[in-house]
């Protein structure tokens, strides 16, 4: 049996303690405040980096054609609102025409044969449009709008909607 190496001064036989014994320092690790803060910061930064890397994995897959469908939905909504406006304008204009026409026919009498000429012998001219024509203008504009903006089917639907139906549709929309 070969004898082991000669033990030096301070050798306690415990690994790691030898050097401590030789140097005469406290074996417990003691970091000053600054070093402790730096270690903490490094660990925090590493944790943040790892957390961000994990969060980075969460990607969102966009449905194809999303933008087109958003635009289509907005176009449909705009049309719906315009159509509603047209319906009400048409209804109001039609009512206006009826009122104006009724007022215009009153001076003509019941049979219309004994009609007196208009006061002062006025003749309807392009320079002074009649009340009836003025009242009908919104309706004409609405019709023009319908021609420009809608297809034949939508136009037909818009024109067959009775003012009472329009009220009903509005109520349905509010309720639905």
């Amino acid at each position, binding site marked *: 049996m070969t004898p082991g190496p000669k033990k030096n001064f301070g050798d306690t036989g415990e690994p790691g303690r030898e050097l401590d014994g030789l140097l005469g320092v406290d074996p417990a690790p003691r970091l000053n405040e600054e070093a402790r803060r730096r270690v903490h910061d490094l660990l925090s930064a590493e*944790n*943040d980096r*790892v*957390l*961000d*890397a*994990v*969060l*980075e*994995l*969460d*990607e*969102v*897959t*966009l*449905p*194809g054609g*999303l*933008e087109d*469908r*958003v*635009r289509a*939905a*907005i176009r449909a*909504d*705009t049309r719906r609102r315009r159509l509603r406006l047209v319906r009400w304008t048409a209804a109001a204009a039609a009512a206006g025409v009826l009122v104006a026409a009724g007022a215009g026919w009153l001076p003509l009498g019941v049979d219309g044969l004994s009609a007196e000429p208009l006061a002062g012998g006025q003749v309807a001219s392009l320079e002074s449009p009649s009340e009836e024509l003025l009242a009908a203008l919104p309706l004409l504009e609405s019709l023009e709008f319908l021609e420009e903006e809608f297809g034949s089917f939508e136009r037909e639907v818009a024109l067959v909607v009775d003012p009472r139906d329009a009220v009903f549709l509005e109520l349905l929309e509010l309720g639905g």
Partner: protein
Amino acid sequence: MTLPPDPPQRAAVPFAVPPAAGGAPEGAVPDRGAELMLAWQGGDEQAFHELVDVYSGQVYALLTRFLGRGHPGREDLVQEVFLRVVKARARYTATARFSTWLYTIVWRICINETERSRSRRHLSLDAGLDDEGGLKLPDSAELDPAEGVARADVIREVRAAIAELPDSQRIAMVLARYHSLSFAEIADVVGSTEKAIKSMIHRARETLRARLQPLFERDAI
């Protein structure tokens, strides 16, 4: 098509005040969203189409991360957001980054939707039905099998962890991490203070770290 998080450098970039509001601050990059919105206000209809192109994906991603992949009708909600933009066309003013203004609309819709979903969930539980409309369904949708089991597990855990955060922490964390908004901008979006947002994000990250700690220790990333 997948949408990765916004590039992080956008976080530090201040929004540019449009010329009408006094000129851009030095070092700022133009706010494309505000430019497009103002052009649209001026009658350029094409600008609105571009706004939809640029932002609909971001809106969808925010709704998805906040409401969860199991939430039905996220696409309808994107449409709802842009319908509100259309209605706000006349009164929009470029006082902040456009995305901040847009995300404020998204946040309001998220709150409404969350309340609606909770009441639906409450009713369905009362009726003994499935929790189809609930907010925190297992978030396994959209996972690509080709990603591998380990990675898919990690992604599922991440989504579940985000879904479990309280609403305010979740929106703050998502806006900060995935949409690169500053604390001040997030405070504008959710109507809070910068300090409160900072605290919310700190708490959210602590919660996520604790929840996802086992993944850190696995060699799965």
